[in-house]
């Protein structure tokens, strides 16, 4: 992606990162960390961050 951007005329863009965002509603937000550890993230290769709205 980073290499494709200059070809489209977007110069000066670096450190491009593609991530994943999962939106969900939870009755018990306390368990979201466990959910991330068990399924949503593979912590060997991925980091995760939980934002509550």
């Amino acid at each position, binding site marked *: 992606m980073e290499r494709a951007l200059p070809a489209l005329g977007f110069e000066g863009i670096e450190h491009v990162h593609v991530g994943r965002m999962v939106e969900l509603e939870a009755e018990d937000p306390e368990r979201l960390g466990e959910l991330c550890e068990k*399924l*949503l993230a*593979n912590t*060997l*290769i*991925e980091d995760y961050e939980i934002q509550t709205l």
Partner: protein
Amino acid sequence: MIWGVLQFPGSCDERDALHACEVHGDGARLVWHESRDLDGVDGIVVPGGFSYGDYLRAGAIARFSPAMEAVAEAAAGGAPVLGICNGFQVLCEAGLLPGALLRNVELRFRCHQVELIDERGGERLSIPAKHGEGRYYAPEEMLDELEGKGQVAYRYAEDHNSNGSVRDIAGVTNERGNVLGLMPHPEHAVDPLTGSTDGLAVFDRVARVAA
């Protein structure tokens, strides 16, 4: 021995795996992913493809299937388990094998014949590989431990590591050696018609350890 080949929605190499198992063993049958019962098979192949679409991460959903629970139990009991490509990713996600598979270096899907070295006997195998997420990764200390315990099963020969795997690792085993995963496809190399029968050595290797 009788092999069972798991079939998930999105599997695509289970037919070739079934054929390879028939050539290698005394028979083979497909095991549907919702089946908790492995139907008395002696060994299991977790085949390649895109189980459940690989939407979250390759292999991340398949590990929770009833059939995989049964595979985990069979593996704990010493049964031979061979994970190929997506099957390797599933076994890593399930914690039955160490490490993880990342997108290939340069993010390119690679499809070509590769040469592998069997880390035990130095045997050189010619086997096709085809994947977009086959870059083996594990932290340095885990890699040292794997090498120390002889868990690196196959490495890409010089100039054959096109996906960027750490330390040229193409396949690993669990500590006991009865669970083996690799990215290249031994099930596509069991008939002289397709250029190589070296894939049978991979089936042999996992079957022998478990015997």
